[in-house]
């Protein structure tokens, strides 16, 4: 995998140039962001495989977290059931996206463009944009979970989700059907797959994963914040698209790479973190981030083309 190699090289460079990079403190915060971004990436990935998009990941994530926060703080629901409620609510919002996409028959880009506003707006109306900041300690502690002194609990959590997704898409009939419908809708339909259902399921999963990512971020922030994904959830879009796309998930659907998405998220987090460490003029960080991402995408493409050539020659 080219990405894995790229990551090793980047880590080596950053760790050499700035020893602070490899300090337990930095590794802990790095793996925490990494875990959250992976789940955000997964959330987009499961819709990308249908050939669709979900612009509402951020909105759903925030809306679901506010439900979870309300359940924990106001209703006194225990942590685990409250988290389950939040995930279920996220899945429900995703289900709405899926239903609208299938029923109206327009691209999910348009549907989620509208629902990102609707979900976020409804969240603001209901919460009056006030955060829940007295969450149970058991929940907040999840954000501080630490293994071997430097790995945040978020990373293993994301990896477990990743394994689950890999199994789902490779080893269950529904997962295979989603992939088949994403690759060729008509062929899948004529093969007896209920393609509408696969689209709805994928969107619902996306919503559930967005909610999960939201919960992880809420645990990290120690509060359920309406602002945590930016205005109408827009600030999640960059990590949401970058991870799957760098990881080789096709925007046209039908091809999934769970490992790639995880590595993609890892790479983006490492680059961001490393750039901050390198002390390039802070105002220029964003430009360098863009340049490196572009280079990564192009390099990966080049690698793909070369690999294809080699494979065909054999």
């Amino acid at each position: 995998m080219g990405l894995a190699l790229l990551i090793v090289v980047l880590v080596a460079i950053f760790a050499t140039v700035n020893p602070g990079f490899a300090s337990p403190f930095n590794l802990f915060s790095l793996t925490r962001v990494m875990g959250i971004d992976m789940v955000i990436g997964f959330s987009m990935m499961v819709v990308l495989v249908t050939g669709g998009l979900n612009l509402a990941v951020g909105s759903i994530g925030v809306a679901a977290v506010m439900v979870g926060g309300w359940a924990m703080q106001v209703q006194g629901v225990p942590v685990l059931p409250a988290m389950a409620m939040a995930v279920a609510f996220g899945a429900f919002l995703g289900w709405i996206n899926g239903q609208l996409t299938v029923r109206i028959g327009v691209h999910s880009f348009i549907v989620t463009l509208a629902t990102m506003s609707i979900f976020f707006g409804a969240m603001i109306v209901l919460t009056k944009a006030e955060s829940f900041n007295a969450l149970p300690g058991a929940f907040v502690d999840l954000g501080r979970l630490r293994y071997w002194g430097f790995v945040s609990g978020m990373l293993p959590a994301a990896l477990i989700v990743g394994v689950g997704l890999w199994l789902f898409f490779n080893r269950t009939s529904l997962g295979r059907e989603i992939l088949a419908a994403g690759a060729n809708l008509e062929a899948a339909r004529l093969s007896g797959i209920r393609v509408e259902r696969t689209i709805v399921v994928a969107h619902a999963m996306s919503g559930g994963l967005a909610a999960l990512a939201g919960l992880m971020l809420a645990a990290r922030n120690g509060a359920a914040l309406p602002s945590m994904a930016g205005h109408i959830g827009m600030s999640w879009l960059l990590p949401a698209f970058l991870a799957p796309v760098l990881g080789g998930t096709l925007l046209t659907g039908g091809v999934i790479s769970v490992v790639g998405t995880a590595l993609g998220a890892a790479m983006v987090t490492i680059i961001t973190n490393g750039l901050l460490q390198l002390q390039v003029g802070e105002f220029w960080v964003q430009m360098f981030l863009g340049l490196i991402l572009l280079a990564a995408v192009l390099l990966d493409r080049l690698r793909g083309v070369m690999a294809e050539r080699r494979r065909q020659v054999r």
Partner: protein
Amino acid sequence: MTAVLEVRGAEKSFPGVKALDGVDFVLRAGEIHALLGENGAGKSTLIKILTGIHEPDRGEVRVFGQAVHFANARAAIEAGISAVHQERNLIPRMSVAENIMLENLPQRLGFVDYAEVNRQALLWLERLGLEVAPERAVRTLSVAQMQLVEIAKALVLEAKILLMDEPTASITPHETDVLFGLLRQLRDQGAAIVFVSHKLEEVFALCDTVTVLRDGRNACHAVPLAEIDRAAVVKFMIGREERVAKLGTKPFDATATALRLEDVATSFGHAGVSLELRRGEILGLYGLVGAGRSELAKALLGVGHVTGGRVEVAGKEASIPDVTTALHRYRIGYISEDRKAEGLILIHDVASNIGVTIWRRLAGMLGWLAEGRVRRAVAPLVDKLQVRTPSLRQRVGNLSGGNQQKVSVAKWLAAEVDILIVDEPTVGIDIKTKTDLHELIWQLAKDGKAILLISSDMPEMVALADRILVMGGFRVLGEVLNDHDYGRMSRAIMAHIHEAEAA
């Protein structure tokens, strides 16, 4: 006669394949030159070199005596070569006229002069006998009309060299006659025409000369067609005598009705369609493109809906809202005519493509799908149908057309359907594999499956079907009991069609 187009020792390699290995080709003014070969013989690579899509690795191409190197399609057009490509190359939302003139839109003061566009396009529409308004959007046309627009698009350039790759695939016999008349006229005016077709009857009716490619080399080079016969051409193409499909006798139980339609109307516009299909029988649906055959199949499958009449499956009235029900409750399968768009998932592997219909059945708790189970279900079919693939993990998109078609048959065998609708099973498939597929379909019927065969290939129909229903205009025009005599059958079928045209 002078050679207007000359290819000498053309070589072209793609990663892993040598598509052309020293091919020669000479085209003279005033001739219609057939270019023949099986799939993979190198025909399309040669065409792509001549139209500027590929550049040859070695060898030279001369146009009007000048050595040329086409960097892109535009360069070929500018050199005076125009082409009708095999794929559909129209812009659906643009008008007929604009599509025809797209290579070279007439302008006035920097703006497109639509009056002139329509005027020039109309000339060619008239010459082709196509009665559509030039302003009409292409997407509202029938498949045959689109094909003719495609041809007009190539003719309008008035190129001295015209390449026609399967131009008659979807047009009616009458339209074919008009087209051939026009091509002969152009030839007599000095144009040089390359004609590619799988229909050898057409080649012998139209062409003067033939070049056959096999495995990237010349099997023959510019032989006058007057000097050879069909058997010789086929031998050039496949390297040996044509193998006749071995179809034994196939008795079937006339009482075991698998599928019965009574006066069925559909949302696609069918009316009064009745038919009866028995187990072990191959019922042919013959008709021209646009007769409503594939649509009938899709309505039965639940892609459209049946709006009137009665559908019975195995003796019981059936209502089929979607394909899932058709497959899992009524055990009806459909092999699409459009393998790439509707039949196969090219970016997925062989195992997935065959397994797609049975995942639900194979799945255990929570939909768990053990890889071994899928492999065990799929592998025997791959063996049985002799699909040539390096492994079950191979992407279907990397297989040859014939093997792809076998995969799409395999997936319905896996599903163990009782009724199999086979839509144009051998379009674009080479003669060798075609024979295999004919034997396979025959064997399936013999094993007790009820088969509805949709085909526009008359010889295929006559070879395989037990009875032939002739369709046209979304109705059944008549029925012919097949006695496998080509001449008699084709006359009987055409009689039904002409009767309907006259009425």
